[in-house]
């Protein structure tokens, strides 16, 4: 680790927080319908859909609308992927995708996961990329933000029972938050070297006389939303490592900024909507604390390098360089990795499979903690609110008082639903991993023997259920078994989690606000922040420790002993 490396990390995080505060306030204004500069376009959406944007919805109506728009998005994307061979803008003449792969990919992009069992420049036509995948990048992000706004209203309002209007939230967030940010960031990306063209791939004659086929495409705009929406699905196969998707350190820094700014901003939005900015700041600082610790852990592990390589005569000065490109440096690779897995993004600017065992365990653990640090756009906020409810409940048990959060009494119904949501992740991840590790048709996909093989499979289901999308890339994921079960894991991780969360919101929305008393536990400040961090670690992390001990931890000691498989 170097001082200049830490200066890079500090600069990027400072830029994230500096932008998150005004963006969070702006998003709160969007949620209240006070932002109107695209009013004619917005009105067009309501007219075409027969939508009354002022009609209040119950949690059920809100959730049904959310599922309906996602189902429609899934069907359209599935059709585009299957039919890309007869659609325009397919200069390479690529075939339609197989049913398994199209199902997996469509689920993946609708669920804001962007797990990719294909390589973009080999499998996807330009129209599949920009009109299929990129559109779902926007819409799955808007879905997450809309849900977060609805959950925020449950705490903000007293006794109303309604959560706002899904169609209005969804349309406004897309038009006023995501689209302008993506346009500005997309143009910046073109200026810094990411292609944006409909031209066919180019064949170059290299200096030594060989041929090199250089892929192109309308990438910059899609790469912008891929980060802003914490989607993470690369335009090119190796994601932000590809020189066209991550041409330099400034681009990578902007991408880190992009995949953090909205999740952090939504904490500020929450504080604003519930009328107490301190509440949002406390959540933000807990998230930020985890990001900093995780970055330090990855940076230290990767800078220390692999003793097996050092014994072979490799200079340890550069750290572990297998699977990394030169231009980003270890510091920005560590920060990118911690933020992409903490934020449920899943883009990569270094290959996790080749990380040192401890360096690779950190992203795995960040996802297992529930994708709330700071989590995906929207999903991070409603995820950490579930933990906050559990934290006040446990604190209430300790002192013998009825737990409250923001004046709302937290009772048996909410806690049961919160536990149901929290259990989706371990049940899905550990269940599918356990079954797959004894199924020959699943283990045939593994690229490694020894503990690294277990890490590969565990990582895949963790990434899918956590709606992250990054991978230990050795795994051969394009098989019927993995395409199907990973697809199911993504659906469970997104929708089986969201439904209990919405039910909690509905239940809380119907409760009147009780005024704060002398016995109320303050839910801001260091005491609550520590409590919340503890709950996230214990409830989110503890059940995964045995699997981590068998995978990355075991591999760490094997590596120190100099053994290979």
């Amino acid at each position, binding site marked *: 680790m170097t001082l200049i490396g830490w200066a890079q990390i500090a600069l990027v995080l400072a830029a994230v927080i500096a932008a998150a505060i005004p963006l969070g306030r702006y998003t709160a204004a969007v949620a209240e319908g006070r932002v109107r500069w695209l009013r004619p376009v917005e009105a067009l959406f309501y007219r*075409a859909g027969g939508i009354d944007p002022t009609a209040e919805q119950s949690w059920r109506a809100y959730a049904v609308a959310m599922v309906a728009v996602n189902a429609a998005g899934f069907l359209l994307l599935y059709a585009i992927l299957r039919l890309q061979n007869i659609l325009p803008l397919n200069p390479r003449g690529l075939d339609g995708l197989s049913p398994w792969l199209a199902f997996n990919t469509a689920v993946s992009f609708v669920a804001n996961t962007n797990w990719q069992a294909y390589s973009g420049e080999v499998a996807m036509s330009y129209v599949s990329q920009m009109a299929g995948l990129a559109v779902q990048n926007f819409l799955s992000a808007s879905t997450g933000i809309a849900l977060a706004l609805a959950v925020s209203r449950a705490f903000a309002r007293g006794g109303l029972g309604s959560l706002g209007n899904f169609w209005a939230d969804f349309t406004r967030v897309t038009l006023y938050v995501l689209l302008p940010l993506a346009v500005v960031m997309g143009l910046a990306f073109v200026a810094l070297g990411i292609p944006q063209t409909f031209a066919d791939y180019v064949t170059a004659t290299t200096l030594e006389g060989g041929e090199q*086929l250089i892929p192109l495409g309308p990438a910059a705009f899609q790469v912008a939303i891929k980060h802003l929406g914490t989607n993470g699905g690369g335009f090119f196969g190796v994601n932000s490592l590809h020189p066209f998707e991550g041409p330099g350190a400034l681009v990578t820094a902007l991408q880190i900024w992009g995949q953090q700014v909205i999740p952090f901003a939504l904490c500020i939005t929450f504080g604003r909507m519930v009328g107490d900015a301190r509440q949002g700041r406390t959540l933000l600082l807990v998230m930020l604390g985890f990001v900093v610790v995780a970055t330090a852990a990855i940076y230290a592990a990767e800078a220390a390098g692999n003793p097996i390589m050092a014994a072979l005569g490799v200079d340890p000065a550069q750290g572990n360089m297998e*699977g990394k490109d030169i*231009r980003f440096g270890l510091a920005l690779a560590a920060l990118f990795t911690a933020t992409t897995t903490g934020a449920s993004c899943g883009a990569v600017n270094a290959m996790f499979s080749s990380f040192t065992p401890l360096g690779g365990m950190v992203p795995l653990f960040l996802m297992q903690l529930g994708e709330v640090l700071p989590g995906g756009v929207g999903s991070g906020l409603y995820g950490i609110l579930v933990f906050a409810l559990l934290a006040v409940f446990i604190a209430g048990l300790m002192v013998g008082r009825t737990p409250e959060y923001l004046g709302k009494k937290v009772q048996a119904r909410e806690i049961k639903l919160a536990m149901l949501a929290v259990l989706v992740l371990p049940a899905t991840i550990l269940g599918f991993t356990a079954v797959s590790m004894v199924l020959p048709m699943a283990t045939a996909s593994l690229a490694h023997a020894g503990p*690294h093989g277990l890490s590969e499979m565990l990582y895949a289901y963790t990434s899918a259920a956590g709606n992250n999308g990054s991978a230990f890339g050795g795994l051969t994921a394009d098989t019927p078994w993995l395409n199907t079960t990973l697809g199911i894991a993504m659906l469970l991780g997104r929708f089986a989690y969201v439904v209990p969360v919405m039910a909690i919101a509905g239940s809380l929305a119907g409760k009147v606000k009780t005024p704060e008393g002398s016995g109320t536990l303050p839910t801001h400040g260091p005491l609550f922040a520590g409590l919340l961090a503890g709950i996230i670690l214990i409830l989110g992390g503890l059940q995964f420790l045995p699997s981590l001990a068998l995978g990355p931890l075991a591999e760490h000691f094997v590596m120190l002993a100099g053994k290979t498989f």
Partner: protein
Amino acid sequence: MTGILRPAASTVLLFTALLGLAAPAAMTGIAGVVFPDQAGGSLIEREGKVIGSALIGQAFTQPRYFQPRPSAAGNGYDASASAASQQGPTSAKLADAVRERVAAAGPQPVPADAVTASGSGLDPHISPENAARQVPRIAAARGIPEARVRTLLQQHTEGRELGLLGEPRVNVLLLNLALDTPR
């Protein structure tokens, strides 16, 4: 039920038209006018022929050229098949490959980037230390003074972006192109 189908279908179709067609088309149009070079892939032409992209690494095997990092993209630097080795830290395959590369790389210790495969398989850069070790070989193969090669290397060593971000590095294709360009 029909009450939910109409808004769902119309919202998805309208957003596909706006975000999937109109916006990227406008973006491509603007990019092509304002940043034509970058938008088109930062291609380098010599005598009217495309010889590569300034951003994408190429394979070099002849001793007269600076050699890039090991690549797992296709048979090496296949730009249409970007890929990493994906080998884990305790992989015997990785250890064997590195052992072989170290043996071929001269005096130890060897800079890590010279014997490890990049993440993209298309890394256009090498570290300045890796490049410096190759200077004597190139000077000998070309029959030119080492000082001349060293000067070119210095001119093509890029510092951190904005003086802070990333790492110092050398673009192999641009440096080799400069070597081939008569003074």
